[in-house]
């Protein structure tokens, strides 16, 4: 096999990748949501075709994610409709699809668990509890109590290219290419499946497009499946899902339900919160622990609450694994808390921004882990910017005057505000170590090479890394090269999630460059320096609560959404969005602006367009055909402002803030427009009409 063919593999979209003699793969999948697998009846396979079953796997039949094992191929039990039970490999894709259609999967079907509204302890994959102060006492003396039940639906990532992987033999190594956020996770999964040392596997991240945190662990599963077929057939193999199949079987955003009770004291300030929340993490729940930990830590939003009782459950159901989408569990809880904040302000007759300002986490306030909050957020400047940009106060007063009950003619308009914080890039679930490395090398020609397995994801991030390294060492940015993030060549920089590329990785590059700078005129070139990040005060969990200081580098953001309800259908349609964030140090304003604007578009799409309800039959063709993204023509003008705090502060992650605050601002605006409470996402006209009828 010419090496150049495989060298192209990492830069070519998988769907276009062709290597002479390459084989294709299709998956035979479970036809039912739950049951005992009795066997797989295969049709007669031609001489160039073969099937791979769980029993053929030479190593471990699992992809391990955050302490949870997901089978590469089901062996005795099936846990969701569409779970892979066998792989068919051969030279002709169409012939493989015909063979798959003639294959019978024999399963003793059982009644599936699909509803996570009621669940048993057997279904709980992870639970987290937070306790602060005495919430019972606070409720017993409360002046007012506000309550709410909240629900946030699932969402599809809708990748630029469906999930897939290529596995091929490159001299004495197995080369794996896939669009992943975590190359070393792919490597370890593939090595485990094949029963070979990790060094025998080279993983090169291929083009992935916008991953939206959907490529944390699933590419490892697909890569291991591709590698297995390559290993057993001794041929190069490409395995790419058609889009409809990707939609049915790949992970989606976890569904969320929560019940909130908030106690207000005599001055209408938040004195206690009782929260019970559950996340539907589907089968196996590979991100269950991190999801539920983040949802619990985010339960009080950006507010101080001296008495807190939070119980969170990650519930397993027999749907495809559900997990992350542009953030891991924070956004859902923030939606609920911001709706409670709106309700609390209304109940106490306070201005919604003033109530929020009074109750904001301040320096010294107790955080959910008990540690005092150590920073002062620029809330006043941020909220003032939002009010000014959106003309919030005047519009809110005006829209609130509409006499809907008296038959005021539509379209009804509303405007809503919400705030959120984004934690630093560290994991908080408790079991995944937060340790990442970056290496730089300054050679004799004064060229700098950056080695990191972090996947930049965009040219802007690459530019940020190059330019900051060049500035540190007084080099021209063109003399700074970013080496491919391949395993074996670059150190393990962890998964590219939670805005880490511009927080942790960028800071590691600067630290490594600072080391080179110190040694530059004392040692001969080349100089190699490695920088490793360890979270100073990581979160650890006990049965009663958590310890650590995850909030220290949290960024604050806010959003205002203005909308109108269609006069005929009552469908909410945003007419304006304004976002303000306090990013700490800003590496690249244009990149940050684009990133926030695009995130706001995706968040709006989730608010009113993207409905995804698994039916008893799982996600079928109907769900795929009916899934709607927000049309580009429906995107309103989006205004963005940064509240800068000087150059000395650290860069904070801000990319997820629109996902955290736009949905709540949207729901608050719908509530004002329709005069009803909307505590569910997505919000569709039918739901608004139903609530209006009910009131």
């Amino acid at each position, binding site marked *: 096999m010419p090496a150049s063919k495989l060298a192209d593999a990492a830069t070519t979209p998988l*769907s276009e990748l062709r290597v002479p003699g390459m084989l294709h793969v299709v998956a035979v999948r479970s036809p039912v949501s739950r049951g005992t697998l009795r066997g797989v009846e295969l049709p007669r396979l031609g001489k160039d075709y073969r099937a791979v079953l769980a029993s053929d796997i030479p190593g471990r039949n699992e992809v391990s994610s955050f302490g949870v094992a997901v089978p590469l191929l089901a062996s005795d039990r099936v846990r969701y409709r569409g779970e892979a039970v066998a792989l068919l490999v051969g030279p002709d894709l169409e012939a493989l699809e015909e063979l798959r259609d003639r294959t019978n999967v024999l399963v003793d079907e059982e009644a599936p668990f699909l509803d996570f509204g009621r669940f048993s302890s057997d279904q709980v994959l992870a639970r987290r509890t937070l306790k602060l102060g005495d919430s019972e006492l606070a409720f017993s003396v409360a002046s007012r109590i506000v309550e709410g039940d909240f629900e946030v639906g699932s969402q599809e990532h809708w990748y630029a290219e469906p999930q897939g992987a290529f596995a091929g033999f490159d001299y004495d190594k197995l080369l794996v290419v896939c669009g992943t956020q975590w190359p070393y996770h792919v490597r370890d999964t593939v090595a485990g499946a094949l029963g070979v040392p990790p060094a025998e596997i080279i993983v090169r991240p291929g083009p992935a497009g916008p991953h939206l945190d959907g490529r944390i662990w699933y590419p490892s599963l697909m890569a291991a499946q591709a590698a297995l077929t390559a290993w057993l057939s001794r041929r190069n193999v490409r395995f790419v899902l058609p*889009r409809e199949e990707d939609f049915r079987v790949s992970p989606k955003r976890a569904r969320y339900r929560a019940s909130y009770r908030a106690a207000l004291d005599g001055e209408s300030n938040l004195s206690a919160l009782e929260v019970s929340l559950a996340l539907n993490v589907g089968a196996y729940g590979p991100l269950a622990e991190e999801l539920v930990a983040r949802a619990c830590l985010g339960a009080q939003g950006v507010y101080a609450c001296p008495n807190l009782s939070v119980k969170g459950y990650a519930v397993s159901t027999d749907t495809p694994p559900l997990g992350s989408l542009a953030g891991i569990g924070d956004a859902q809880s923030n939606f609920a808390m911001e709706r409670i904040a709106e309700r609390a302000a209304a109940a106490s007759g306070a201005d919604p921004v003033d109530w929020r300002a009074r109750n904001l986490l301040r320096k010294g306030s107790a955080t959910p882990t008990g540690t005092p909050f150590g920073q002062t957020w620029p809330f006043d400047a941020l909220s003032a910017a939002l009010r000014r940009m959106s003309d919030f106060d005047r519009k809110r007063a005006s829209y609130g005057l509409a006499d809907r009950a008296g038959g005021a003619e539509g379209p009804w308009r509303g405007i809503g505000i919400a705030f959120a914080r984004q934690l630093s890039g560290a994991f908080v679930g408790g079991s995944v170590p937060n340790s990442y490395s970056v290496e730089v090398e300054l050679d004799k020609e004064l060229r700098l090479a950056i080695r990191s397995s972090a996947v930049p994801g965009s040219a802007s991030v690459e530019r940020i890394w190059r330019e900051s390294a060049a500035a540190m060492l007084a080099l021209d940015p063109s003399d700074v090269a970013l080496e491919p993030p391949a395993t074996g060549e670059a150190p393990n920089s962890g998964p590219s999630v939670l805005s880490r590329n511009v927080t942790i990785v960028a800071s590691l590059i600067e630290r490594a460059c600072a080391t080179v700078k110190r040694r530059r005129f004392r040692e001969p070139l080349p100089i190699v320096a490695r920088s490793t990040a360890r979270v100073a005060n990581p979160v650890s969990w006990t049965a009663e609560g958590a310890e650590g200081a995850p909030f220290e580098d949290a960024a604050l953001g806010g959003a205002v959404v203005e909308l109108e309800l269609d006069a005929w259908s009552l469908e909410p349609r945003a007419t304006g969005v304004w976002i303000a964030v306090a990013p700490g140090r800003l590496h690249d304003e244009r990149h940050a602006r684009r990133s926030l604007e695009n995130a706001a578009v995706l968040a709006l799409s989730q608010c009113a367009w993207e409905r995804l309800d698994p039916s008893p039959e799982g996600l079928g063709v109907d769900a795929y055909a009916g899934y709607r993204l927000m049309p*580009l023509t429906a995107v309103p003008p989006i205004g963005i402002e940064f509240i800068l705090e000087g150059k000395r502060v650290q860069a904070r992650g801000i990319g997820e803030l629109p996902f955290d605050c736009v949905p709540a601002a949207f729901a608050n605006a719908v509530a004002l427009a329709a005069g009803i409470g909307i505590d569910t996402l997505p919000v569709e006209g039918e739901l608004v009409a139903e609530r209006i009828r009910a009131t």
Partner: protein
Amino acid sequence: MTIDFILDGADVSCRARATDRLSDVLAQEFPEAGVGSDCRAGRCGRCVVLMDGKLVLSCLVPAFRVRGAEIVSPRAYARTEEGESVAAGFARAGVAACEFCTPQRVLIAGLLLEEAAGASERRILEAMQTVQCRCVEPSALVRGVRAAVELRSERKWPHAR
């Protein structure tokens, strides 16, 4: 059956069944054209091509319809003078679209500029809606098309102010 057509300026021939989609034929037989066939339902837009000068979603075109036709793939269009000017306009406006949708968006923008250089924002977004990719904010696409118009104008009238 054997189907002869022109692909990116070259006479090509391939075997296909009557029920095959053009996108599948292009993706399987001519991968260098870079035409995707992901959704096969006219949704994702990765399969757009010019067929006899008109933009089509090739997953909705039966392969037999292409007999004798001229197909231009997005990747080939991007190499033309028109395509290069659109790409330059996108670059000038800082459009950071991903590697998957950029050729298709360039093709669509180029076609739009031939139709009406002063296309409204709504018209630009309607046209760009053909490709469903979440990588880029819509306002950037509008800026990109407008920048391409400016660039073409500057090239056509280099001395005009």
